């Protein structure tokens, strides 16, 4: 499935919650195999799963970083939508420019979030919730509420962009490259000093401060990265769907948070790792995939998802209670 994870596992908390998630995942995979009469395991299916969920993966990684520092970001989906709009509006002047503008937007929003939350010490939940409203609003104003396909200068959506998603680079599908790339990127980040600090800051920010760690900077950086990642996801969105959509992603933050918590990341901060989070995401993805392969009515899907979230977090909770 995925290439082997290159991490110093020892660096990342007790792997126990990750075990929980892995167990669920394995059970699901087995179930999937059985129920779908083997269809699940076929490489085309597996690759499809990744391809369809590239955006989600990127956003999940973003949320992971923020939650690790003890915060939360509810504005992710809005940034994706906003970024998709920006990309379409500017792609007539060049794809590169479009990407840069989108990333700049994401960075700015993340910076705003970070500064309000860290310097003014305002609750992250409320601030990012408000930011979500604002960003969606601006996106809708820019497109008058509609999905768009034309740039500011009237140019139709660049074909190259929509082809991007379907292409293969060195034999591997482009979205897969993005998946791998982002996971690697975040893993590398966690290996820099800032990644090192994040765990301390999320785990005990007073002790972190006493140890001379730049608590405020790291926290703001988490939000900035979140904005950047979401903007990138928006760029991919346009590539995949072919339009800029100011309404998309309304449930994205929730899904991201769900994936993180299933993967063992604690909402309080300081606990969790990249592998666990990816596994948490995979649990959700496999779940969705299984359900469609088996032709489970899409009606039942939210219910199953909700149950899985509850069960997974309950198990994680019981485990940490045991620790105490």
């Amino acid at each position, binding site marked *: 499935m995925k290439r082997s994870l290159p991490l110093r596992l*020892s*660096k990342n*908390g*007790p792997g126990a919650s990750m075990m929980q998630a892995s167990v669920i995942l394995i059970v699901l995979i087995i179930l999937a195999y059985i129920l779908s009469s083997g269809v699940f395991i076929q490489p085309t299916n597996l690759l499809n799963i990744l391809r369809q969920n590239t955006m989600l993966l990127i956003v999940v990684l973003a949320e992971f970083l923020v939650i690790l520092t003890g915060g939360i970001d509810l504005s992710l989906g809005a940034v994706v939508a906003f970024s998709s709009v920006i990309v379409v509006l500017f792609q007539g002047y060049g794809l590169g420019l479009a990407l840069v503008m989108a990333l700049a937007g994401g960075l700015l929003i993340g910076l705003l979030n970070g500064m309000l939350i860290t310097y003014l010490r305002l609750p992250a939940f409320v601030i990012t919730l408000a930011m979500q409203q604002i960003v969606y609003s601006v996106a809708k104003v820019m497109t008058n509420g509609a999905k768009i396909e034309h740039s500011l200068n009237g140019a139709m959506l660049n074909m190259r962009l929509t082809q991007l998603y379907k292409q293969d680079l060195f034999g591997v599908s482009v979205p897969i490259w993005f998946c791998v790339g982002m996971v690697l990127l975040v893993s590398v980040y966690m*290996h*820099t*000093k800032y990644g*090192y*600090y994040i*765990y*301390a800051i999320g*785990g*005990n920010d*007073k*002790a*972190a*401060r*006493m*140890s*001379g*760690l*730049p608590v405020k900077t790291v926290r703001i950086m988490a939000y900035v990265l979140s904005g950047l990642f979401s903007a990138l996801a928006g760029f991919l969105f346009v590539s995949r769907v072919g339009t800029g959509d100011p309404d998309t992603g309304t449930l994205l933050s929730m899904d991201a948070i769900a994936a993180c918590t299933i993967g063992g990341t604690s909402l309080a901060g*300081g*606990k969790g790792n990249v592998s666990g989070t990816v596994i948490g995401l995979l649990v959700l993805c496999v779940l969705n995939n299984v359900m469609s392969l088996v032709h489970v009515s899409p009606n039942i899907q939210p219910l199953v998802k909700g149950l899985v979230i509850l069960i997974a977090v309950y198990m994680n909770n019981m485990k940490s209670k045991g620790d105490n």
Partner: protein
Amino acid sequence: MDDLVLKLEGICKSFAAVQVLKEVSLSLYAGQVHCLIGENGAGKSTLIKVVSGAYHPDAGIITYLGKTIGEIQPRWARENGINTIYQEIDLVPHLTAAENILLGEEPLTRFGNIDKKRAYGRCKELFAKLGVEIPLEVPVSQLRLAQQQMVAIAKALHMNSRVIIFDEPTSVFTSKDVEILFRIIRDLKKSNIAILYISHHMDEIFEIGDQITVLRDGALIRTDKTENFTKESLVHAMVGRNIDFVHDGAENEQGEIVLEVKNLCANKMVKDVSFQLHKNEILGFGGLVGAGRTETMRALMGVDPYESGEVLVRGQKARIKNPRHALGLGIGMLPESRKTEGIVGARPVGDNITYSYVENTTKLGIVRWKDVKAKAAGTVNQMAVRPNDTRKLVTFLSGGNQQKVVLGKLLAANCDILILDEPTRGVDVGARSEIYDTIKQLRAQGKAIIMISSDMTELLTQSDRILVMSEGQIVSEMKGAEATEEKVLSSALRVEA
């Protein structure tokens, strides 16, 4: 009034390997004030927690109103007349004084509504009994500390307490507040309530106490009527040991001045503190709880801001704004509470040791992890952390080893000036001596060490020089070799020795 209300016999309590109470017995009589005194760490706090049900004793008998009681739960104790007024007042912050006092048993009208009139009436009655006036409509979080305490006392009264325990009630009081409190206590006596009063303010004890019990190292040393004590004999009881203090180590050559503090003032707890620190020196800070030692050091470390004063580090003026800044100047701190400020329990030993070090090996944002790992392993060896495993989560280590990790962090960061706040609190004997050895090695290497300690033995045997603080000021200075427990304690208590 000689009715025995509460009797403790042979109470023992241990935490992990440390025995905190050794067969302590205490009797509380109706209408009498029984004062409990002892040095920091003597076991006073643990004892009252046993009485109030927060802790369960490992051994011993508790008899209340003639009946032997088994394991007490805090709520049971409260509802049955044993009330403790803690320093951390356990009221509900957003509720008013009246709501807090009657929480759980509000009087109701015929229709089942809260009968505000009766509630206020009852509260006014209680406050009148106490002789104070407290606004009833304001959330208690907006009341002054002393007023919050009055509310807690009123609540205790309301619950028909037979025993009221005061845990260091006057730590941050003005003298007027103290007067009011004492008047209240005298009134409580008239109502036949038994009072247990913990304090280290000598004057208070002699003024309000009928009986005094002295604890030392968890054991009962002496209990007697107040009139049979003098201030000196009290200090002697608190202090008198048979062990001879041998000052560890030879006469030390003091190096040059590495830190100079002038007229430091910080948030009412540090009032004009000035001192100097030398290389090759262990400077001990003695004094009682609340004297301002930790506050002074936190200001120096940049953890809390300070209002005025000058700090010179190696001769250069420095305005230390945060711990990062302090560490940059070579100052590092081992905080008093390692759980809340010292360790990141959920992270491994190796991480904790190198948090302050990582910055040093970073070039252009890229960390040389090999160096970091090596440093972690090296420091773990150096400090003799057990188990010798950089991947073990710090929360699973014993107190002593956790402390070694924090100390190791300062070492790894190459601090020249180390501030240690209670370095061996909650640490077993073995780790203790290892920590002492490390500190002495650091001194030999030319580092300067400030050691805040409430452990008299530690203070006297490890310090080259001792400064004693009381109520925010430095009241005396003495050479380590010439200091005695009595001298230190007398200064701390502001008693003429």
